[in-house]
């Protein structure tokens, strides 16, 4: 991490210092001890804590899910991650400009040298998401574990979030949809985007469809994991090799980071 111009690529994504992280752990420990004390002082057999523990199992606030994508390992002619996402969530393209794109392959060209890079771009799951800031109904929100989602129950289809997103990660559904996957409801008149395969994470798969597909091709260009866990593969890779976040000038602290671009 001695390369000038690059932010430290720690588990916190560069947006928060290790000091802050320590303070956060401290606060968590404090809360935990407080909760334990409360249950002791109340009375044995009082099930006041039961509700909290059940809810925490799904969207865990101690976790921040993230992706590390190595553009050096991503061949320009491979789109396995895109088709895997399409199969997993049931979105498909009709050859129109307005087709949904939860994930897309982007080619970057260095004009000075002509060197080309190919990489997948999807919702970057910002810590400070502009789409959440602008949403007038609260439909665009960030889960406790850092995943940015659209609640279609309250989405009115205004598409403000699509304009606010610096990565063009959100799409609008222009046609009535039938035969949706039970795990991914989606419909006409609402906005959608990468949900980090939240249904898979909630059932404990611990990975996403795109990462599985990438590994199946043997390219192994994507690593998925918990950015807050220093022992996870993604945190170790981030600590050992330089990585960047797209549009780091916006200081959004992204959950998706890239190498070799």
């Amino acid at each position, binding site marked *: 991490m001695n390369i000038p111009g690059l932010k430290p690529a720690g588990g916190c994504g560069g947006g928060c210092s290790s000091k802050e992280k320590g303070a956060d752990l401290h606060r968590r420990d404090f809360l935990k001890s407080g909760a334990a004390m409360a249950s002791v002082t109340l009375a044995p057999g009082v099930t006041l804590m039961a509700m909290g523990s*059940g*809810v925490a*199992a*799904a*969207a865990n606030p101690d976790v921040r899910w993230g992706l590390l994508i190595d553009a050096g390992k991503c061949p320009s002619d491979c789109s396995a991650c895109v088709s895997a996402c399409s199969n997993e969530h049931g979105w498909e393209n009709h050859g129109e400009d307005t087709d949904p794109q939860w994930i897309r392959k982007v080619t970057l060209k260095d004009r000075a040298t002509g060197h080309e890079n190919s990489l997948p771009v999807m919702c970057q799951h910002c810590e400070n998401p502009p789409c959440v800031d602008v949403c007038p109904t609260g439909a665009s*929100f960030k*889960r*406790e*574990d850092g995943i940015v*989602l659209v*609640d*279609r*129950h309250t989405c009115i289809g205004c598409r403000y979030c699509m304009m606010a997103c610096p990565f063009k990660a959100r799409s609008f559904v222009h046609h*009535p*949809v*039938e*035969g*949706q*996957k*039970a795990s991914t*409801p*989606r*419909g*006409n*008149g*609402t906005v959608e985007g990468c949900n980090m395969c*939240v*249904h898979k*994470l*909630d*059932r404990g798969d611990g990975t996403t469809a795109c990462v599985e597909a990438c590994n199946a091709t043997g390219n192994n260009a994507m690593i998925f994991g918990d950015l807050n866990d220093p022992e996870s593969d993604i945190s170790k890779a981030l600590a050992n090799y330089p990585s960047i976040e797209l549009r780091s000038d916006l200081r959004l602290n992204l959950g998706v980071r890239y190498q070799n671009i």
Partner: protein
Amino acid sequence: MKRLIIATLVLFGLTAGVAISGSVYPEIPKATGEAHPEGNEFMRVNHMDLLRHDRDLTMREGVRDTDYSLAECVTCHAVNGPDAKPVTIKSEEHFCRTCHEYVAVKIDCFQCHNSVPEALGEASLMFERPDETLDVLLAYLEGLSK
């Protein structure tokens, strides 16, 4: 005399009303699986609140093992069409539509959610069409043979 006429009219009105409601009341398709422990009357009145509560839990907090889910509704309450496959919300025979059309309440659920079970489990395959349809067919055949 006046009273008698009114009483007769009221009586006639009541019997006519009963007769009409008897014919218009929706035929609610039977479901597979275990009956709701809360009872059908409770579910008829409260199903939307139960679903709304659980949808927020699942969507916002990621709780997936909720007591009520729309996917379970459409699985147990699937109605098979002539092709032995569960009918979608486009069909008037769909479980949700039978009641919702009767009470004239629009459902938005199936703009995003699938209105048929995703995987054709045993439950939906074993589901039989209402006996009445068979009766109608038999009566029709009988009429042909006469």
